[in-house]
């Protein structure tokens, strides 16, 4: 694999695979953060900490 191809995989995540980068992706896959799963947590946190709601944040604004 040429250096350019290797760089392109690192840059775009596509194209001919760089084996070292691919191995790291696999090893680190369990640490991926699921934002969809945690999205509700944000609302709960804000409520529990009593963060101030701005005026347009009221239900009528939704």
């Amino acid at each position, binding site marked *: 694999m040429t250096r350019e191809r290797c760089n392109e995989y690192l840059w775009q995540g596509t194209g001919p695979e760089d084996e*070292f980068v691919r191995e790291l992706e696999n090893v680190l896959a*369990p*640490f991926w*953060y699921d*934002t969809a799963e945690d999205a509700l947590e944000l609302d709960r946190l804000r409520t529990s900490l009593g963060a101030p*709601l701005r005026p347009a944040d009221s239900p009528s604004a939704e």
Partner: protein
Amino acid sequence: VALVARAKAGDRRAFADLYARYAGMVYGIALAELHGPDAQDVVQETFLKAICSVHTLNDPAAFGGWLATIARNTARNVCRARRESGQAGDDPSTSGGQHARIEARAALDAIRSLPAAYRETLMMRLVQGMTGPEIANRTGLTAASVRVNLHRGIKMLRERLETDRAEKRV
């Protein structure tokens, strides 16, 4: 920019969209400093702070960089608190097989030992699967800077992991 403007006006849905778009970047920054559970807490805390102060942001186009700064400061505060309390923390997913545990831990430790710009960019790319253009778009860094961070970071990481492996063989 439009999303940020709507969030500034108090639109909760716009903020949820910003969360979906930027949480990966914030997590990458946090994971570059802290172990998994702490990094997840930093994501939540960062967005909470952002919700409370987004109205102070003058330039909506600067949102990514502004949020990244909040994330770094929050992560550093948690890091400092951890050090002062003597709690090291741990990465939960490392409780799998022995072989995988060693590799994942070695990889994370090696990334965390890199200069900040490299380790943050590599966490976004290798853990969150963000592409170079996505990282540039979210962080506000130029594409050229992200390319440099990725390429130099992966080079240093390769050298460090290979050195570790060689030392273990001896």
